[in-house]
């Protein structure tokens, strides 16, 4: 099994996972989405809110703001030495105090620990007009996407089978498949259809080209064939900036290893083999 990166920056990754199976690829995807912890605001104490938004809506908006997370300093509340009571190792606190008229942005949320500042400064929270006021205190905890989607470190995170496109001898270069392809990955060269260089991975496996193929008559095989290779997966991972994508990938893999080791221990205990 190997990971070949096509693209990797702080927020986006695109890679091919080779010699794998759908079961593993899906476990990996699910681990990235729901097992990698991040910080998100969970408790809000509202001292005053005379804005047009209800307290609950305001709290919900605060919860959705992605926060920079350093998992070496913050641990999930359940694993913390304070026993989940809330200390500086599992909880980050913020204060917000704004009087109108003006827009309240995520940068107005003042963190006690500056390393846990919101990832974006410009998220509008609520627009205040004359004589309106919001004063509150918020507590963020580390948790996973399993508990609530606001703790997911990923946005778009998915995979597809590696597309394999083959052309048979019968291709007459009519160009119907070229016109039909929504990604424009096909072209006609020297009377034969072929894949545009470097664009094979962009194939959606939609097989519209197969339907459009005119090489044979009705009922005969199309001369273009699309197949998804189940042993190779193209992954796309997009982060919400709370964690770098590389860390999400690493932590998800560590989680999978831990889970399989735990299973191994339990099974060997049950069967009496040590």
């Amino acid at each position: 099994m190997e990971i070949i990166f096509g693209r990797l920056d702080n927020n986006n990754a695109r890679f091919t996972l080779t010699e794998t199976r759908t079961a593993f690829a899906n476990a990996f995807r699910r681990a990235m989405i729901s097992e990698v912890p991040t910080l998100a605001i969970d408790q809000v104490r509202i001292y005053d809110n005379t804005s047009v938004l209800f307290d609950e809506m305001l709290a919900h908006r605060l919860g959705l703001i992605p926060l920079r997370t350093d998992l070496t300093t913050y641990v999930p509340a359940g694993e913390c030495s304070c026993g989940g009571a809330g200390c500086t190792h599992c909880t980050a606190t913020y204060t917000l105090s704004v009087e109108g008229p003006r827009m309240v942005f995520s940068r107005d949320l003042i963190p006690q620990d500056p390393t846990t500042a919101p990832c974006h400064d410009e998220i509008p929270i609520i627009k205040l007009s004359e004589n309106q006021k919001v004063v509150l205190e918020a507590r963020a905890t580390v948790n996973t996407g399993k508990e609530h989607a606001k703790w997911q470190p990923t946005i778009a995170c998915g995979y597809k089978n590696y597309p394999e496109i083959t052309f048979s001898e019968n291709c007459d270069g009519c160009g119907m498949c070229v016109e039909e392809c929504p990604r424009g990955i096909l072209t006609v060269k020297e009377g034969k259809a072929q894949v545009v260089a470097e664009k094979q991975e962009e194939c959606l496996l939609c097989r519209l080209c197969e339907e459009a193929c005119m090489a044979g008559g009705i009922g005969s095989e199309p001369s273009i064939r699309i197949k998804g290779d189940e042993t190779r997966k193209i992954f796309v991972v997009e982060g919400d900036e709370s964690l770098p994508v590389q860390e999400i990938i690493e932590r998800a893999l560590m989680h999978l290893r831990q889970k399989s080791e735990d299973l191994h221990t339990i099974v060997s205990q049950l069967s009496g083999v040590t």
Partner: protein
Amino acid sequence: MIPVRCFTCGKVISTAWDEFKHRRESGEDPAKILDDLGLRRYCCRRMLLTHKEIVDDLNPYQ
């Protein structure tokens, strides 16, 4: 208020609202603005396209 994140995929889209609003008001093509703002998926695009801001309408009733 514009939702903080896209309902479907969870991308933070509220940061793009201000620019989107101003550029649309100045008569630009919404499709081009959304492309510039890096909103590729149609779930995120509809968040901005179909949003109606009503905070200012609610203010007199507070």
